[in-house]
């Protein structure tokens, strides 16, 4: 791991440990939980878009697969939750592969629509054949491990952000490895990658699967936290929300995905005082931040820090 990454990671871990202690209110911690769940999906999309250059408007589909499959398995088949979550990830991976093989031949807007179509089809399937149909289904067990159930909000917060940390570590390793380099290469030139003997298609499919698995994990965590799910949480709206998180945070940096997820999750909470006008204010903030922080929050912060440092060095 590079020095900068290591430092950010340590700060990150420290923040995770401290937040529940400082905040004291389970409301704040709950906001943290949903931020963490969204961050998992956003990290996957960030690798897919920022590093491999592929657009997806179908992440909600994988998120929904994760939520539904692990809920169904744990409620109806009585499987231990960890097993159900893993099974859900496998199902999401298979679905991603089936979609990716033909879809990744498309590019740009066409790929966006193909993934959008996939997400909507999953949504319709959940609506038509999911347990409970559009009404959804409840009484899903809380997350548990080895007979110990995590019921408390703080416990759940640590579970989710612990997983975010693991996923983040995995992703940083991946991005900084030869594989990560190959992914960035795809972003630049398909043709040159082919000449380098890189199996571009296989790499793209694998990234797509990775992002789907992250989304599925997030979906399972959501289901076992809220204990009730209905298809409306897994519609196109959510895919666009995640896209927004990645763009606002900064598409070229994995930390951007995490920060973006937190910002987009917390923002509506801060806007509560505007009551019905909040949608309008929310839209305006988004528009302006997209226009003025075009690279995203994290890359801009990094630039500023670099400039400060250069300035300090120059002063000496």
């Amino acid at each position: 791991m590079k020095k900068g990454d290591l430092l950010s990671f340590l700060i990150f871990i420290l923040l995770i440990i401290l937040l529940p202690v400082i905040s004291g209110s389970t409301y704040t911690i709950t906001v943290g939980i949903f931020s963490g769940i969204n961050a998992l999906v956003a990290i996957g999309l960030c690798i897919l878009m920022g590093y491999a250059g592929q657009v997806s408007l179908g992440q909600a589909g994988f998120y929904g697969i994760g939520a539904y499959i692990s809920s169904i398995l744990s409620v109806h088949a009585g499987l231990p939750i960890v097993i159900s979550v893993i099974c859900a990830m496998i199902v999401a991976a298979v679905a991603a592969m089936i979609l990716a093989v033909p879809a990744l031949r498309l590019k740009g807007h066409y790929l966006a629509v193909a993934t959008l179509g996939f997400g909507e089809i999953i949504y319709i399937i959940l609506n038509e054949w999911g347990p409970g149909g559009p009404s959804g289904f409840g009484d899903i067990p809380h997350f548990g491990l080895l007979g110990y159930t995590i019921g408390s909000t703080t416990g759940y917060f640590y579970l989710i952000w612990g997983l975010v940390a693991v996923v983040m570590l995995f992703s940083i390793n991946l991005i900084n490895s030869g594989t990560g380099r190959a992914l960035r290469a795809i972003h630049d030139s398909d043709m040159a990658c082919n000449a380098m003997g890189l199996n571009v298609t296989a790499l793209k499919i694998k990234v797509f699967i990775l992002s789907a698995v992250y989304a599925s994990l997030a979906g399972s965590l959501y289901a076992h936290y809220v204990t009730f799910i209905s298809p409306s949480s897994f519609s196109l709206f959510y895919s666009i929300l995640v896209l927004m998180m990645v763009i606002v945070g900064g598409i070229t940096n994995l930390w951007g995905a995490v920060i973006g997820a937190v910002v987009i999750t917390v923002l509506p909470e801060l806007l509560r005082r505007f009551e019905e006008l909040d949608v309008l204010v929310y839209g305006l903030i988004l528009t302006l931040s997209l226009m003025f922080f075009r690279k995203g929050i994290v890359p801009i912060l990094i630039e500023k820090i670099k400039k400060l440092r250069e300035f300090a060095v120059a002063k000496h």
Partner: protein
Amino acid sequence: MSFGGLMALRNVSFDVIEGDIKALIGPNGAGKTTLLNIVSGIHQPDKGDVFFLGEKLVNVAPARIARKGISRTFQHVELFGNMTVIENIMVGQYARTRSGFLSSGFKLPFVVKEEREIQRKSEEILEYINLGQRKDEPASNLPIGEQRTLEIGRALATGPRLVLLDEPAAGLNIKETRNLGEIIRKIRDELKITVVLVEHDMDLVMSISDSIIVLNFGEVIAEGTPLEIQKNHEVIVAYLGEEEEIQRGYNAHT
């Protein structure tokens, strides 16, 4: 090979001897790049075959052809512009490593070892092509001459038996061209890699090639050593054009 009814190449047949530098020349639109694209698998011919070390290459995906040992550069430089110089070379070696998604993500020991190995070898290659000084610069910041050299370095990084160079001297000044010639010769002599070269710079072609093929309108019009080609009448006509030939004859008469 044809594009939308336009025949780009026909009845082209030639061999490349291992360890040679073979040049492909011909006027613009003669089909040289198309030929390279067919060999490297980017285009599929309508008819005909390409063999490499006894294996058929038609209908094989470009990436697989590259892994079989044919590497190339492009007429319009196709570097990974967002990456540094050394990263470009490192990507070239990725296809030969064992690391995959899971092993990289979990940072297994063998991945770390491979990465160190790649790093070392990439620095070696950069020294070889005289770009060691610039290894941490973004590739897009290099002047065009060095970009072309870097592209050759990247092609070498894949560990090829044959490299295809598409107009490597385009946009280079005389000094850079001379350096390029040195590098290409070193590739043949020291690394024992076969080179196929498409080039317009006749000085370069004549000075380094072991043999030359001339294409015009998709057909081979001549093949031989640099010396033979220079004397070939048809080649002169192709290059200078029929009319000019007549013109010259007319001038001679008066």
